[in-house]
């Protein structure tokens, strides 16, 4: 039970910390913060697709460098951005790709003996590993740049302008408001349960305890939902959500879109025609 609470607490803290950090960067006046959310969203997707469509290391590197430049212009701390983008997902990609140099056959660049077993490292395997990790890193940096520089409200607004279903937007908006509320509630319930225990409990018992906390959370959520509806109704809610700010495409958005478009076209051309004089694979 205690281990469960400790591990969950870390998870919960991460969510809150991420939110606070995100809030910090969305309020800075940088390039990405000034762009229209639709433009950012579509540009991010286009660049990610370029990265996944390409098997050339030079293009992955170019996208990674471009993303870091954009982050810099958007006034995001370089050190923070590296840590935030590399720490979880690309690091896991490294772990996944770790066996590649040993299992892919090709030109042997190193070999050593462990317990009489000959282990060989191939050049092709190393490249494969490098390109996989770089691609994942480039893609993750792009989405994290979008997340760090976009306010949730304006992203939702952008999504609704891109014709996402109205019901989806309304539920997204309300769910977001209550995530923190229920996370906090669940945390308190787990701590309260722990404080009533007199000794350590087994795994199954801990799971059962946690699950009844969840059941209770669900029931409270239902009851809360009824109250929220009545409170909203009494304030004039009729199923419509209105926001005050209206989105407009500015000159900056057009320039940015054209630039990103040009970069993507350039990369595609490079991908198709250019043979490099030096080995970049």
């Amino acid at each position, binding site marked *: 039970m205690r281990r469960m609470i400790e591990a969950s607490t870390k998870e919960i803290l991460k969510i809150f910390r991420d939110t606070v950090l995100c809030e910090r960067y969305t309020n800075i006046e940088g390039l990405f913060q000034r762009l229209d959310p639709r433009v950012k969203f579509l540009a991010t997707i286009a660049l990610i697709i370029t990265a996944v469509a390409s098997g050339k290391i030079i293009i992955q590197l170019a996208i990674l460098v471009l993303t870091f430049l954009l982050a810099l212009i958007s006034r995001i701390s370089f050190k923070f951005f590296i840590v935030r983008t590399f720490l979880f997902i690309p690091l896991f990609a490294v772990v996944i790709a770790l066996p590649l140099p040993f299992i892919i056959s090709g030109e042997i660049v190193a070999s050593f003996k462990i317990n009489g077993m000959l282990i060989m490292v191939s050049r092709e395997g190393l490249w494969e590993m490098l390109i996989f990790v770089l691609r994942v890193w480039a893609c993750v940096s792009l989405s994290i740049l979008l997340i760090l520089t976009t306010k949730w409200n304006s992203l939702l607004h952008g999504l609704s302008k891109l014709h996402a279903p109205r019901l989806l937007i309304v539920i997204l908006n309300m769910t977001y408001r209550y995530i923190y509320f229920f996370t906090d509630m669940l945390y308190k319930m787990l701590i309260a349960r722990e404080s009533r225990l007199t000794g350590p409990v087994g795994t199954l018992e801990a*799971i059962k305890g946690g699950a009844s906390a969840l059941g209770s959370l669900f029931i409270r959520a239902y009851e809360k939902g009824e109250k929220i509806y009545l409170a909203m109704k009494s304030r004039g809610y009729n199923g419509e959500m209105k926001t005050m700010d209206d989105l407009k495409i500015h000159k900056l958005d057009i320039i940015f879109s054209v630039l990103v478009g040009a970069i993507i076209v350039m990369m595609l051309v490079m991908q198709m025609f250019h043979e490099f004089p030096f080995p970049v694979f």
Partner: protein
Amino acid sequence: MHIPDGYLDPWVLAIFFILTAIMWFLAFRKANKVIEDKHIPLFAVLTAAVFAAQMINWPIGPGGTTAHLVGGALVAIFLGAYGGLISMTVILLIQALLFGDGGITALGANIWNMGVVECFVGYYLYKTISKALGDTSRGKIVGAFFGGWIGITLAAFFCGLQIGISTIFPYDIAVSVPVMTIYHGLLGTIEGLITAFVVGYTLKVRPDLLELPKIDPL
């Protein structure tokens, strides 16, 4: 289970985005007909509760291994198959667009696995088993266990399939599908247990919540 950006080929992204979009279209068309104003806050808070529930780390065995609840089957048992899909869509969108969990371009694939597959398999298995066992509390609990377990295992199977058929992912189907399916098939028993315990608890405390109108294909 959340596939990040950079794992899937463009055509895999496209296929699963289209498949998911078809399910979205059907689900939202039905939901717009069935859902009333007063259901919207209920829907939203339940979704938020599932989001919170996903944050618990469940201890499994020795060595500090932990598992997370995905909750697709659980939410579908409460809201119906389409309802579960909408709820999981909201959760996965928030995770991808706010916390960087799961890729933005991989949303179609992730929602297919954890929204469509897990909710539909989980929900219909739950219904079939509980009906076969005579619609008793016990039948519902057993149904919830298998719904949660098989639902997540099949979701993992699809996840393995998607990364396996992608050429940019370094391993092929022969590796990715067995690894994902077996690993999550084992971990999935925890998902099944939690789903069963939560349904059992609700049956004991407020059984009426399981009988609310659901958003279903039929």
